[in-house]
């Protein structure tokens, strides 16, 4: 009986894996196929790197979009994480008036569907003259990513025993030195994890970039739409661009895994 359930479990695992992996495998294969081979499901074909060369060339200029995506994502993370760390530390360690309400509000911002707020953003940015700029995109991404990062990092800081910080205070540190010398190193796995999540969210953002950019600040995800041409969907190019989007995420996923384990095993010294 036990063997039977084990077999059932194995089959289910394989099924789930198939459902998840098939599109990715299909794209990975299509990226190296020539246009004529794309609709054929055969696994044996003459692989080509031509698609990658094409997408970086005119008229697609994927390189510029790659740069936009990279700049927007990195700057978003570089701003969001310090702000979120400061906020998370305050929420974790200081009692203030209206703290609970504030904290729930921060979470509540995550409940608002992006579609609802994209229009106000559009009007606002139009009046400010920052439509189709990286700065605009960074601002929007910050508003999405920072609340989430605050929640995440607060969890990690909560896990740092107060004794440790108070020991550092008595040992001669100022509050800022405590944060720099004790809290940040101890929360490092959490910070890295939060940073990677923020990066993924802003890297994968489609809706805001679609509405708020037109030309100069177009990102990779929106750039994919370019491959729906009059002659039909250029699946081989789309797949190649897809790979370019996925690879950094894949690398990040590997790193995150390592840090997750670290974050869980770090624990406090008791």
């Amino acid at each position, binding site marked *: 009986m036990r063997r039977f359930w084990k077999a059932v479990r194995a089959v289910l695992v394989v099924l789930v894996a198939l459902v998840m992996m098939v599109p990715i495998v299909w794209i990975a294969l299509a990226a190296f196929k020539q246009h004529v081979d794309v609709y054929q499901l055969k696994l044996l074909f003459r692989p080509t790197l031509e698609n990658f060369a094409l997408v970086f060339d005119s008229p697609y200029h994927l390189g510029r979009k790659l740069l936009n995506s990279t700049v927007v994502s990195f700057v978003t993370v570089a701003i969001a994480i310090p702000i979120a760390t400061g906020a998370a530390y305050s929420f974790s360690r200081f009692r203030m008036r209206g703290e609970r309400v504030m904290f729930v509000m921060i979470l509540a911002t995550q409940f608002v569907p992006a579609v609802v707020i994209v229009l106000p953003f559009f009007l606002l940015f139009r009046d400010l003259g920052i439509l189709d700029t990286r700065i605009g995109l960074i601002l929007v991404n910050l508003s999405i990513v920072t609340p989430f990062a605050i929640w995440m990092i607060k969890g990690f800081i909560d896990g740092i025993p107060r*004794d*440790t*910080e*108070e*020991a*550092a205070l*008595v040992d001669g540190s100022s509050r800022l030195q405590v944060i720099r010398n004790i809290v940040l190193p101890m929360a490092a796995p959490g910070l890295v994890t939060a940073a990677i999540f923020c990066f993924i969210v802003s890297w994968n953002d489609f809706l805001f970039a679609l509405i708020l950019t037109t030309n100069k600040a177009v990102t990779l995800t929106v750039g994919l739409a370019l491959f729906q041409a009059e002659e039909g969907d250029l699946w081989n190019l789309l797949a190649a661009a897809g790979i370019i989007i996925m690879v950094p995420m894949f690398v990040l996923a590997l790193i995150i895994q390592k840090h997750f384990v670290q974050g869980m095993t770090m624990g406090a*010294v008791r």
Partner: protein
Amino acid sequence: MASISLRSLTKRWGGFVAVDDQSLEIHDREFLVLLGPSGCGKTTTMRMIAGLEEPTAGEVWIGGRLVNDELPKDRDVAMVFQNYGLYPHMTVRGNIAYPLKVRGVRSTAEIDERVRAAAAKVQLEELLDRRPRALSGGQRQRVALARAIVRTPQVFLMDEPLSNLDAKLRVSMRAELKHLSHELRITTVYVTHDQIEAMTLADRVAVMNHGRIQQLGTPEEIYDDPKTLFVAGFIGSPAMNLVEGELDHGRFLAAGTVIAEVGGGTRSGVVLGARPEDLAISEPGTGSFDAEVYASELTGESVLVTVEISGRRIAAKADRQTRRAIGETVGIRVDPARTYLFDTASGDRLAR
């Protein structure tokens, strides 16, 4: 080195009073223990000395300086925490060196030498390159101690430093602490709920309850001359026998018991206290009263005999050869000179 002076110190959280208008003078080089049950305000008092908690009212003076508005780092105190408060991302060496580094000692040679000296005092030299998580509880406690002594502060504060150790280690660490404090002669405030720690370590003990010091005195005074019912009941293990009754011309009367010549005149609402070691077991009819043995426990160094009289249990410490069967009737002899009288309502000690 410094004296500490607490003047009308109060700490309130909303309606909860943790420390209630408390004044206390701690002498230079004194080892003072704050002793009391959990929630009595002893840790809060210490945290206000350290600057980790802001007093609601009152003043903290260290070495003749009013420090109310000073940050912990400027008070020149060192603290050992119950959970050690070690820095897990630093080695033992890094932990001990931290107070020096953060206070601007730049010379690596000097830091190295002082870390070594501090580590040597607590037998840690072999472990300097380990991380805290690779250490046992006792070793972690030593790291916390070394970190406190590495820079000769004016005052040591210790918040239940031994309570996370197992019983055996606690006894040996207690002796080490005693030796260390004798060697360093630095003003120390030590918080504990363990009366044995208080008795063995302290120059003076402050017994606290409900945010107030009930009695301040040497361990001998606290033990031999408790001023209140609370102190009498809290100090001593096994605890003092406390029996409610009344006084009739210097005789103590309670159900089934008459004890002559305890003094105190005539009044009702009186508690008589007698320590188990001041009671003697005798043959029936020869003691102050007879009672039935409820339990007899050999603790090793002595036998604790508990008797029951009128539904009340009384413990007596007898020598270790004593053997009494449960249900046997024995006499209990009370030495009137070694009894204490308290007012039931106020808990204050009564004059004889």
